[in-house]
C-alpha cells in the first residue's frame, strides 16, 4: 500500500513515466489504482521524432506492469516520511 498511497499524494504533479518499450511519457499524474496503473493528462513524449505515434493523444492510461521507471518531482517527495513508512510496513509484514 506504501506506493499506492504515495502516488495518490502525487496526483496533480508532473512525472515522467518510462515504459518497458523505451517510450518515455511526460505528463501530469491524474490518478493511480492499487495495481499502480496510472492515468496521465497533458502528455508529451520526450522523443517526439522517434515516437510520433501519440501526436493526437492528450491523456492516457498506462498499465502498471509495463512501467519500468517513474521520474518523480524530488521536492514533492518527503523522503523521511517514505523511509518511516517503509520501516513500518516492513515490521507489519514480519508479524504476519
Amino acid at each position: 500500500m506504501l506506493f499506492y498511497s504515495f502516488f495518490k499524494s502525487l496526483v496533480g504533479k508532473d512525472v515522467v513515466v518510462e515504459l518497458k518499450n523505451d517510450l518515455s511519457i511526460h505528463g501530469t499524474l491524474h490518478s493511480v489504482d492499487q495495481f499502480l496503473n496510472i492515468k496521465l493528462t497533458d502528455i508529451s513524449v520526450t522523443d517526439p521524432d522517434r515516437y510520433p505515434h501519440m501526436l493526437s493523444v492528450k491523456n492516457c492510461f498506462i498499465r502498471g506492469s509495463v512501467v519500468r521507471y517513474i521520474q518523480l518531482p524530488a521536492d514533492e517527495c518527503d523522503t523521511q516520511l517514505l523511509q518511516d513508512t517503509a520501516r513500518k510496513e516492513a515490521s507489519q509484514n514480519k508479524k504476519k
Partner: protein
Amino acid sequence: MAEEAEQPTVATVEEPFDLVRLSLDEKIYVKMRNDRELRGRLHAYDQHLNMILGDAEETVTTVEIDDETYEEIYKSTKRTIPMLFVRGDGVILISPPMRANVG
C-alpha cells in the same frame, strides 16, 4: 501496546528483507533486467521490491559487434535522476552499501 511495538534495538538479519530494511537511507546498488544498473539512496521499498531511489545513477550497457574484427564492444551510458520510482519486476538483485568504500 508498548510491549508489542518494541523491536529489538540490535540489528538482526533473519530474512532477506531485513537486509533491504537496513539499507534504507543508504546508497545501494541495484542490478536490473536488460543490462541496467542503478546506484542511489534507498528511500522506500515494498514486498515486490518496488523502490524509490534518490539521486539515482543509471548505467545501461550495450554491446556492439565490430564489423571487421567481430570484437564485442561494450558501451555504457549513464544518467542521473533526482528521484526515481523503480518497478520491482525488473529487479534482479540489491546490494547493500559497500562499507569499505562508502563513508
